């Protein structure tokens, strides 16, 4: 007698507020999970970077050293290093444990909007308002970038790195994908200034949100549009978008204080998660679990699929 096939469970959405973290570092410019999702990193407008425990919400460490508000952060795969970028035009490589600045890299002509490690944390890529992406070597002691990608005609707003590809969204309304293996640059014209780009987890698609209040899912290889998601408000702010842990939903921040969940395939709005009154500025999805971080004003909220028990346990 064969066992019945398990019924495909409906994907769980992180719609229950687990906790709210008051960061006390001014406005939270960006909130990020670390590589394994156990820790939370918040970039504050008071020049500090804070490391939190995701499960308990306790502050673990504060990293200070930037000269102006911190705009983005990324953690290395082994949690040993962090890289941040700031309005003070610098990119800093941190040692996580000691909280010391390993390297402070200057070279950008304007504030640096986004920063990412590559897979092995051997290169840091930083995109700046000056329209360049700089590739910094973390292995050598050189203070010059390995390469400068200056093809963008306006500031870089968002940047993601996959195994051998760089996905770069620019204010000039184009999403550029640099394929290192092929030695090619693919430019997809979106038209409206890009606020956020990301790869899908199967890295076959790219997601890009733009200032025309639309999130678009494009096929990576052909550039054809697979889905268009709208309904949220994104007209002036650099808002994040992302895909859920199993690529089932598309998420985007909104200026109306909600996080919008769309079904990836159907394109229909699944959930409109009310976060608060102000703009939801940044969000980050847990790499494996249905767990979401949202940043609004000075606090970060952690959202989970199962509400009570976890929250009760923790509190």
């Amino acid at each position, binding site marked *: 007698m064969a066992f019945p096939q398990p019924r495909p469970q409906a994907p769980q959405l992180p719609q229950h507020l687990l906790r709210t973290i008051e960061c006390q570092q*001014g*406005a939270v*410019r960006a909130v990020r999970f670390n590589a394994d999702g156990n820790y939370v990193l918040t970039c504050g407008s008071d020049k500090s970077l804070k490391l939190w425990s995701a499960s308990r919400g306790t502050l673990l460490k504060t990293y200070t050293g930037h000269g102006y508000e911190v*705009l983005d952060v990324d953690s290395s795969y082994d949690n040993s290093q962090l890289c941040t970028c700031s*309005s003070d035009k610098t990119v800093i490589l941190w040692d996580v444990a000691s909280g010391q600045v390993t390297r402070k890299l200057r070279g950008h002509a304007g*504030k640096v*909007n986004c920063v990412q490690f*590559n*897979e*092995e944390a*051997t*290169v840091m890529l930083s995109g700046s308002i000056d*329209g360049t992406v700089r*590739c910094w*070597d973390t*292995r050598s002691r050189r203070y010059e970038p*390995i*390469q*400068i*990608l200056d*093809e963008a*005609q*306006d*500031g870089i*707003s968002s940047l993601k790195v996959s*195994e*051998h590809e760089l996905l770069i969204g620019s*204010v*000039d*309304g*184009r999403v550029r994908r*640099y394929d*290192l*293996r*092929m*030695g*090619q*640059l*693919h*430019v*997809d*014209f*979106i*038209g*409206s*200034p890009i606020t956020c780009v990301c790869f899908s987890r199967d890295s076959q698609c790219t997601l890009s949100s733009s*200032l025309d209040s639309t999130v*678009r899912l*494009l096929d990576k290889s*052909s*550039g*054809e*549009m697979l889905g268009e998601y709208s309904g949220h408000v994104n007209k*002036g*702010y*650099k808002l994040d978008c992302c895909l859920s842990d199993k690529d089932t939903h598309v998420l985007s921040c909104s200026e109306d204080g909600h996080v919008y969940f769309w079904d990836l395939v159907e394109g229909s709005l699944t959930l409109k998660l009310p976060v608060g009154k*102000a*703009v939801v500025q940044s969000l980050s999805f847990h790499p494996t679990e249905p767990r979401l971080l949202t940043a609004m*004003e*000075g606090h970060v909220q952690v959202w989970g699929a199962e509400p009570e028990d976890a929250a009760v346990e923790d509190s």
Partner: protein
Amino acid sequence: MASDEDSDEDFVTYGTPLEPLEEDEPVRKPVPVHEQTVKDEKGRYKRFHGAFTGGFSAGYFNTVGSQEGWTPSTFVSSRQQKAEKPNVRPEDFMDEEDFSEHGIAPREIVTTDDFASGKKDQLKDKAKAVSSLAALIPGDTGLLEELIAPARSSIGVELLRKMGWKDGQGVGPRLKRKQRKQNDDAVKVYGCAFPPNGSEESEDDDEFAPENVSFAPKDVVPVDFTPKVDSHGLGYRGLNPLQALGGGSETGHINLFTLQSDRTTSLFGDRNSGQQRRGGIGGQAFGVGAMEEEDTDIYHKDSMSNYDNVLGGEEPGDGLYGWTAPQQDKNDGFESLVRSHCRSSSFSSFINLFVYPPPDLPRDYRPVHYFRPVVDSSTVSPIVAQALQASRGHLSQDAPQQGRHSLDSSQRCDMLGETPLQGPSSVFELLGSKDRERLNEIRRAATEQNKSALSSRFQSIAPQPDSHTQSQTSPTKSQASSETQMALKAWSGPTADASKTFKPFAENPQKQARYDLYINKLKQGNKDALESSLDSSMTEWERGRERDEFVRAALLYKPSNSSLSSRFTRSKHEDDTDSVEVTRDQENDVDDKQAAVKMKMFGKLTRETFEWHPDKLLCKRFNVPDPYPGSSTVGMPKVKRDKYSVFNFLTITDSSQVSRVAPSAPKPPSSSSTLPHLTPEVSNKKSRWDIPGQEPKDPLSAFLSETRSEVLAAKNQTDSPHAIATPEVPLKKQKKKDKEKHKAKKHKKEKKKKKNKKHKHKGKQKKRVEESNSSSDDTDSNSEDENRVVSTSELLQRSELIF
């Protein structure tokens, strides 16, 4: 074995014979291995107890102890016995047998070099001995040393002495005088047994000789086999700074090229200075040394008397006693020196000593020594001196000739037979006649002033005619004509050569041709050169400008400068400065893409693919093989393009197309045609979606324009920005209408675009905003968007939240 004694034959035996066996004796058993004994060098027994347990016994039963046992010695302070403790060497703790094993040589007492008389070069010894014989005080050199130093003679010398050899003699059989001449070569053999053949001959000769006397062979200085360790040329001996700087009076020309053998002969007291045999490589081909001031003497010092005229060895002289013979040379020594001086006339007063008053110093005497190598007749042999005097006379007595540095350029030019350079030789010739007059006047005035100042100091100076003010007051209105006159004057000289003059209008060949014509006419003295050389087809204004330019250029590059310019060479390759590096691939026009975006036709229309070269290190860091191995470019491939091209700044896309699709006719920079300006870009772009044979040009563009108009129509009807444009085929009439509407809209858009282009170089950001505005225009969200003229990038981070 036993039969050995019986046999008569002699056998050669090797080794020690075995003892003969006695029959009664029992057969000896061989000693077994374990009973064999090993003794050390001193006859002590060594016991072998297995290779794995340490080989032979050592110490006291293989221990470090002694017969008394191993008792650790009690500590005894050596503080009081410091002086008694000598330096301990490792050998003190070693067995004697082990010395050789560790490379320690047996020590014995030897006289150190300090006490032994220095071991000297044998050759030098001999030379010294010979020279001591020739010296004024014979045997003065080594006399004292010989008394003190221990006599050490080699066994060879002892043997020779035993055989009857005496110091100073040559080695070999005794020879008769006649014979010696022939057997000169045999004499040269040193320390070698002479073949018996020769000795027999000499004996035979003895019998027939009138005097029964034979002589020892002449001693020979052995050939010098000093290895050559330096990197000089053969025979070059380097400069002795003492000799070189010691002043030229003693040594005329420092000859750097003497063979070692020559030097050794010079040690012999210059025996053959009379012959003046100058070996080596001295002479003209080796130029002038850095230390030598003047080169004339080396070029003239040589004469034929320096060379041998006769083949063969040196004259043997009397050679009665070999080296022991008294000095034969009469040319050497003080006397001969004096004689040679007397022969050269100016030194006749050398002998009668006379005290001269100190010389009057000349007025231009500078108390600085000037090294001037002078050929001094005292150092040169009299024969050479004579020859020199007879032929050239470059001895110091001669009037000093002018060095080549004291000649001026024209003299040198004459000597070399060059044709003089064209152009004026003096600066004054470069001046215009007017200026020259003025200068002359000034000069005259100055001299007059001097005179007047000298004659009457207190008289007022007579007013000078001020030429300067005169020139200033000259009418300015006729300046242009005077300029042309000056140009005419400057160019009418016969010296100017058109080919050598500067070409100021080289960039514009036609203009340059006209200028050349003008210059040529000027040279011919043509008065209306300017007017006739200008192009009559040009406008009056252009001609006026060119006239001005030509006159000015003619004045600027007048032939006076050409004489100078002939001395310089112009660079062959002009700098390629008027080109700029531009990325080869440029993104296409935005309009079509925007249209495509509006229709949500992402894909081919919105995607462009370029070649991009990642840095090698970046590839390495990403663990990706370099996609372009061997290429050195990084980033987008660049091409050089004309810097001043209008296309660079106005329409980048078009210029890129022109460059890429070279033979096809370039599109006009601004899209004057309304419809199909999308098509060529798409088709020309190298994209992987392009199929080579296919030409999707026209149908696609038609389709695009159609759909575009549809979208517009739909907008007009529904007024909703997100209306989906379905590519249905509408009615033809409606389509036409739509098209017209679309055209009108297009015109509007183009105007805007032009405006944008104007501002393009001012700032990207502003343009971006405008563009986004213009795009939003079409989506009917005007009212909202027109208020936002803030830079989008600024907007992005503008999150002034309230706290």
